[in-house]
């Protein structure tokens, strides 16, 4: 509850400030007008259209980049020689920021859904790759030995030991990647791509509508936060009492 005090006080103070000094202008808007703009944007469908573009790109990129990351992560996690062989290449590729690929994607795909998708996929690829590898590495050696003593075949080993043991961490990776994906999608939209939530904010800014700009930012906040909260909820739900031990180790 204490947590609500600060934002409420700040908003009220801003509102009073706005009313007393009249700071409303091309640059600033009072909290009340921001809320009004946010409400209107929700009613006239602006938010829905923008959010569905941004979220579908995020999920699509997550699916593509996540799958690739998972596969490569499993490969380098399970087969050490491949991991060692790829070290240098991966260490060189990893620091290339996703936004640096915007121009390349732009060159190849032009503006639109595909270029954003590719960049989001690239962004989601790394956290999943790294978490998958760490998850496999984090499996206690004793479990490997148990599977050896029981003479489990390679498929049974992956299916019955490695995947379930790694699953809690894999989901953490998925959650991180989803957050990264959303951030990147919005960033691409702000930087170049004229679709989605990010562009809605830029558009409001360029048409001198600070109320709408802050309103859309508010929506980005709400959507991003709910997205995150949903994934956290799913994580706790999916990995209840059984897997908590595994997640900790």
């Amino acid at each position, binding site marked *: 509850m204490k947590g609500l005090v600060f934002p409420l006080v700040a908003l009220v103070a801003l509102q009073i400030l706005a009313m007393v000094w009249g700071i409303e202008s091309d640059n600033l808007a009072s909290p009340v007008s921001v809320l009004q703009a946010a409400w209107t944007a929700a009613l006239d469908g602006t938010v829905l259209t923008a959010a569905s573009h941004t979220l579908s790109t995020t999920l699509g990129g997550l699916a593509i980049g996540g799958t690739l990351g998972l596969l490569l992560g499993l490969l380098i996690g399970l087969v050490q020689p491949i991991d060692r062989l790829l070290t240098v*290449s991966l260490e060189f590729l990893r620091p290339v920021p996703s936004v*640096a690929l915007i121009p390349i994607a732009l060159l190849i795909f032009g503006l639109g859904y595909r270029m954003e998708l590719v960049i989001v996929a690239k962004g989601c690829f790394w956290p999943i790759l790294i978490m998958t590898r760490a998850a496999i590495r984090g499996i206690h050696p004793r479990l490997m030995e148990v599977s050896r003593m029981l003479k489990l075949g390679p498929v049974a080993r992956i299916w019955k030991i490695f995947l379930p043991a790694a699953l809690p961490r894999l989901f953490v990776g998925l959650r991180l990647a989803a957050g990264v994906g959303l951030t990147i999608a919005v960033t691409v939209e702000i930087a170049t791509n004229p679709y989605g939530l990010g562009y809605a904010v830029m558009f409001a800014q360029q048409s001198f509508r600070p109320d709408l700009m802050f309103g859309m930012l508010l929506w980005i906040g709400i959507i991003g936060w709910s997205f995150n909260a949903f994934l956290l909820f799913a994580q706790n739900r999916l990995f209840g009492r059984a897997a908590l031990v595994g997640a900790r180790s």
Partner: protein
Amino acid sequence: MNKNTTRTGKILWLLASLAFAAALIAGWQLIANMRLISPVFLPGPDRAFDAAVTGFESGELGGKLLLTVERMIYGWVLSSILGVALGTLIGSSALARSYFGPTLEFIRPLPASAIAPIAITLFGLSNASVLVLIAFGTIWPMLLATIHGFAAIHPRLTEVGHVLKLSRLETIWKIALPNAVPDILASMRLGLTISLILTIVGEMLMGLEGIGNSILLAARSFDAPNLYAGVILIGLIGLVSNLLLDMMDRRLLRWRPSR
């Protein structure tokens, strides 16, 4: 197996790994030479390298590189100082933590780039605007890590402070801050990555001279070699800064038991 052979083993693996990277580049060259992908989209590494060399010889690329790195570092340093200072203020008081913590946690997952339109609104398309964007977009990890470092201090250490009758300032300086250092360093690493991203975004958005802007312009004019050269340079900035941070970590965290 003894220590010697494991060390030579390591070196051999490193060489193999380098060879593999070289093979990848060679594969790239081959794909480009065979024109499996149109050279408009994918120039060979040779052409990208030539473009970089030409760019550096004319001094143009070097200048842009410097500008970008400068922005990134300014923004990062600024946000680190602000983040740690603000984090200390909030973190050292349980009361402040309970009032501000939730708001900060709410803001944290938001895309840092969303600050860009605000910065442009307030400061226009300017250098100051980019700095504000970088500093405020990058501040969150440092701020939250510092607060967390204060919150996660072991009660035994606080008691040591009490027993030794340290003043509040001394407790912060001698116990709480050092305790938060590992967290802060980890967050500064993340911060540097974000700082580079926001520098690129900022340059693209505000059309400021720098590598970020130059790759966007290269893409618009279908100048693939310069585009790829720029992207590789940005990757190198990330790589080198990470290596430097690694070195810093190792110096500052020597007291920690190695994991």
